[in-house]
């Protein structure tokens, strides 16, 4: 596993490993699973469907996962999205979709580059 690649992709590898008792194997498996996680897609769907409730649900899920896996940027953005939606500002949360997309793509590209 190439830490620098993952770090460049927006993953705080040390933080994640700290949480997973230093198990790179576990982290690798979880990162692999992350690619299968549908939360991000569901968020995009909710944005497309203009469904704030579904958006909150998806963002919340993605927030939990990205937090656990120390995907700093993704976690930040989803946290903000959740706060905005809770505060009733769904349009502002939707506007985060692009930024979130790029953060998500970086993470995804990094994971794929590591062939996990």
């Amino acid at each position: 596993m190439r830490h620098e690649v993952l770090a460049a992709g927006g993953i705080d590898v040390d933080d994640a490993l700290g949480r997973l008792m230093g198990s790179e194997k576990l982290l690798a498996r979880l990162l692999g699973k992350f690619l299968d996680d549908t939360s991000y897609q569901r968020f995009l769907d909710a944005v497309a469907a203009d469904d704030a409730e579904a958006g909150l649900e998806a963002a919340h899920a993605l927030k939990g996962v990205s937090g656990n896996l120390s995907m700093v940027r993704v976690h930040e953005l989803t946290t903000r999205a959740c706060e905005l939606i809770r505060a009733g500002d769904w349009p502002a949360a939707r506007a985060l979709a692009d930024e979130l997309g790029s953060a998500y793509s970086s993470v995804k590209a990094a994971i794929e580059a590591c062939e996990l």
Partner: protein
Amino acid sequence: MARQRGTRRLLGLLGRMRLSLAVFALFVVMAVTGGLILRDTLLQNAYESNTALSRYYASETDSNLVTYEALLEFGTASIEARVYEEQPWDSIEEWANLYCERLRTVLGNENINLYGVVDGRVLAVGVPDLGEGSDPTSRAWYRAATERRGEPVFTDVYEDAITGEPVVTVAEACTGVDAVLAFDVYPESFQFRFATSDLPEGVSYFLCDSAGVPLYARTGLDPATVAPYLADLVSRIDAGEFEGHDANLVDSRGERRAVDYTRLSNGWYSVVTTPYSLILGDLNTVYLVFVAMGVAFLAALAVMGVRDWRRTRAMERTNETVRVLGNSYYAIYLVNYDEGTYEMIKGSDYVRDRIPPRGPYPDLLRTASEVIEENTFREFEESFSAENIRSLVAGRVRDYGGDFLRKFGERYRWVNVRVLYDESLAPDEVVLCFREVDAEKQRQLRERHYLEQALDTAQDSLESKQAFFNNMSHDMRTPLNAIIGLTELASRDTADAEKTANYLRRIDQSSHQLLNLINDILEISRMESGKVSFASERMDLAQTLRDAIAPFEMQAREQGKSFSARVDAPDPWVLGDPMRLSQVMNNLLSNALKYTEPGDSVSVAVTQEDRGDVGSYKIVVADTGIGMSEEYLPHVFELYAREQRFGTAQTVGTGLGMPITKSLVTQMGGSIEVESTLDVGTTFTVTLPFSPAPPEDAPACAATPSVAAGMPEDGPSLLAGARVLLAEDNEINMEIASELLSEAGVEVVQAWNGQEAVDAFAASEPGAVDAVLLDMKMPVMDGCEAARAIRALDRPDAREVPIVAVTANAFAEDVAATTAAGMDAHVSKPIDFTVLCRTLESLIARRQGGDLP
């Protein structure tokens, strides 16, 4: 007052309507005069024509009577000759018979009798005697005839002595001899050949004798009433009542009639009466027209008057209003900018003394210059020159004006000047009005001053906030830099396990410091936006405080400081928020430890002040640390005023603890005070009110649900072998938690949503599940709902199994929701393994302890 004004207004109105009223009066006079003249003329005409008529009938009557007179004269002439010739009585009687025959023949009346007195002897033809043997010389006809000898006379109508019928006697006395001859004529046999068709409709004609006995009547009156009517009429004629053209009477039918008469030579009357309605018939129409015109005229006048009155009233109201408005101004001038003149409507005493009520406008400006400051006046002169006013009007600039200082006596006061105009009402003219606005202006200036001050304050506040954020950023950068640096060091020296461990420990410290700082900032932010909520639940105050104090006691010992704690609360069960109370204690104690050196002492004393409906509890935390300067002391609870604090080297905390503590205590209804002396020590005294909690049967609730930090760590051994039900809908999160817990020897039972968790718990053997971990947000059934469902299950362990919430939102509200759902604790996402294990350990240990006898 109002009546006075009304009277004045009415008088004014009448004054203005003078001409109209005069015209009306003239009209009325002319109409009445004209009417009277017309009436008189009509009456005169009628009089003339009716008199002519009566005369005509009189002459007609006369001519009728002439026949009788001629016959009688013939008779008297004959008898005179015979008496004169002294013919014997027989031949006289013979002649008399013959004569009577002729009379009867001529007059066509067989009933005519002739009688008379000749030389004192009664002569009678056709009548046995003259009745009752009375003396004929005493009879009316005899007397009348002898009075006027040689003239035939007619008697009035009288009743015939024999027949009783009305009769008129025609008699004549001879001039030469003593002989009177007479015969009777019955009125009904009068041969009146009047062309009565000449009489207009409604006009009556009467012929009567001198006593008013009707001889002939052509009238609409009831025949029975004619006799008394005529008798009355004639008596009044005799009295002279019916002289002239306007003689009239009201007849029995109530009709007014003009009376015209002619007296015949024999004393009879020929009377014509004409109804006034006939004479004046057209006049009434004329009168009606006049009256109608008058009424119309009057109505028009009234309408005009009312309209005028209303207009006057409206105008007067306007005038009054304008006057009231004018009172606001101490000076008002009409300025004609075309002619360059002014007219003083109202002037200040000063100006009135110096210039006349009218004059050239420059004079007014010059006078103004005497009371306006020189610089201001130049501007004033430019703005209110005739030229500028003209351009203002041309440019339709409304309500032009401004404020300036004007000298009143010795003092300058603020005055407002306005240029007002209405070019449609008064072209080339504007109203220049001055109003004193000193008080208003002073207030405005004062308000403006306050506003500026407020702005300055806001600016200061903004700046101090800015400083706060700068300092915060600095404070955050410090541990962050340490973490980065140490991480780099650690990764470089991976071979040296001891060094690495040391780096990691320090990294951990810095991380926690940073986390504390951020938590504090978030707390403050929430407090500032008023989003902090407080629970009101049953708690053991003494136990909560002891739990909160315990970790610090250990920490103090480790740091070589003496620590003493005394909790004296006779009524420990109160309603309150244990988490917030712990937070207050944490802040106070960590502060005390932070500013003390090894060898110093920290003491906590909790006492109950009041007992009763609301208990008051005093918490005193005292230390013998470095203390605070007198200058700083007042700012200890302020958020944005601690620049120097953030700069000092010894501060290891965020420095936000005290403001947070103060805010918490205040919101709990309590107070906090601080005493401190530099290098001697600090004492914080917190006083908090708590309502006593109602007694509760189950003592199980003595537990303090709180973030399970600072619990004593007895090693992971407790968790080994424990069975934990884990509900989490996300695969990755589930795997992480499962892995971590498995690593600690926990047997994990997985559930993918709340419902599954409830089902799994329900399916387990009682006591088989040692703890439940519930993610807050899950499909099908969320964490709170699942916790409530588990607690509601009918089995012995349903109420006591520890339930821990896993939530991404560690806000007080969320925590309160988990507490309300019956959960014992909560841990934040991303999961901190140490915190999770400690929480589970303490909860399981307490339950086991509780289970022990």
